[in-house]
């Protein structure tokens, strides 16, 4: 027999931002309160059972107009997997040309089906000395 506990969330489904209270006994959800619509209850249940997040970052790229290639996760990962995913992405690098949607790493941080993909196309460009900041003195 576990005691009743409660969790508090702010609903992000729309800009109203209903303050939600979820009552549970262990893993068992007893009730959700505070929502003005059904999306609030759904959000609180999802947050309690399996909160998932996605994020974007960049990886170094050579031969492109800028030195960084923006990348994203193809799907959300469990929230606690974010640091591991970030650490794995930090080891990546790319070389132009890169196509939008190109997969740079599969199953990031061991999460099956979640890939790291390029968010844009970066063509190979000729870098002239005046464009290259590292050559400036």
């Amino acid at each position: 027999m576990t005691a009743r506990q409660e969790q508090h969330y702010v609903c992000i489904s729309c800009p109203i931002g209903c303050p939600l209270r979820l009552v549970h006994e262990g893993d068992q959800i007893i009730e959700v309160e505070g929502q003005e619509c059904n999306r609030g209850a759904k959000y609180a249940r999802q947050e309690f059972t399996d909160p998932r997040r996605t994020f974007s970052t960049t990886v170094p790229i050579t031969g492109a107009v800028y030195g960084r290639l923006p990348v994203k996760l193809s799907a959300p990962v469990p929230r606690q997997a974010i640091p591991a995913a970030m650490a794995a992405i930090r080891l990546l690098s790319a070389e132009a040309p890169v196509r939008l949607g190109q997969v740079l790493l599969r199953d990031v941080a061991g999460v099956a089906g979640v890939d790291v993909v390029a968010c844009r196309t970066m063509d190979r460009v000729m870098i002239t000395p005046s464009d290259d900041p590292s050559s400036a003195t």
Partner: protein
Amino acid sequence: MFGRMNRRYDVVVVGGGPAGLAAALGALDSGVSRVLVVEREPEPGGILRQCIHAGFGLHHFREELTGPEYAERFVTQVMDRDIDVAPHSYVTGLAVDSSGHRLVRVLSERGGLATVECRSVVLAMGCRERTRGAVRIPGTRPAGIFTAGLAQKLLNLDGYLPGRRAVILGSGDIGLIMARRLTLEGCKVEGVFELMPYSNGLTRNVVQCLDDYGIPLHLSTTVTRIHGRDRIEAVTVAPVDETGRPDAARAWDVPCDTLLLSIGLIPENELSESLGIALDVVTGGPKVDSTLATSLPGVFACGNVLHVHDLVDFVTEEALRAGRFAGEHARQIRRPRDAIALVPGANVRYCLPHTLSADRPHTVYMRAKTRMSPCILRVGNLLERRLRFVVPAEMIHLTIQPELLERFYEDRLQIDLLPVDGGGVP
């Protein structure tokens, strides 16, 4: 074609961000064929290129895209449809010759100073960030103070981490998103400080960018002093009263090596001003009629140079329209002048366009002064709509159908946001 610039066009678009790209496509849709986009950066895409987070396109594409993905969809269309894009180029002036052609003065890296002849111009220069000077923070003038968007550019395009220990002033969406971004890159974010008693960003961003990472949000609190000689070493922060005055007795110091400012955006209208275009003091952008034409004939405006939008989807919608009207103008299609002035009333900070006509549907954008929940949106005595809530950070959009204006014989239409109890119709 990328990098090509001829001497003669139907429509010249100033700026190759989301507004400029959509305006160019809109112009093409209206039936003109020669369109030039003038862009000062090495590539088109504008601010979206550095907004690598997701959240764009939910209205326009009905899917969630990152900024670069959203931009690329438009860049691809612009290239496929043979619109010319001049990178590293800058519009320095505009004149009208005796035959009614507009002469656009373009300064570019490759071509030097050139004059391009066209029939219509679309202004799509976007906006820029308010800086320390705009809020007059006392203290020293050390390095390490950045606007949030500049820090975002350094980090996401160039790959430089602006600092190791940051304080963020202002809780707009850019500030919130940078808090998460810096944290992911190993910079400690000491807190986000907001002068107002509420966050200026979306709830979603407060939850997913601050709460998830344990970053405190201090409401009704502001930075009152900057410390440090060469590099910023700390800021003094203090709670403020209802009038916004800081309480020095309750102030405390926060050590940091970086201060990010996310304190608002200003439409970038130096070019418009130099042309003598009439500006609206509230929006900071040009006054426009229902075709998004400015006070200078043949010159149109759209996107953040017209008024600061919160969603790029609305920029796209507005810019497609501006581009179409600019294209029609280039094809010598003339519409009768608008007969109805649209004016902001109770709790409406501004509404756009400034005038309407009765012959076609109109998309009206407006912003509330303060939060209301629920409330009634009233358009003259023509239309009433109940809204669940309005907040200043969320633009309200409304379509006014021509049937509604059919029997409207006045010359002034006022928009009000009224509380539900006090403002009911008899």
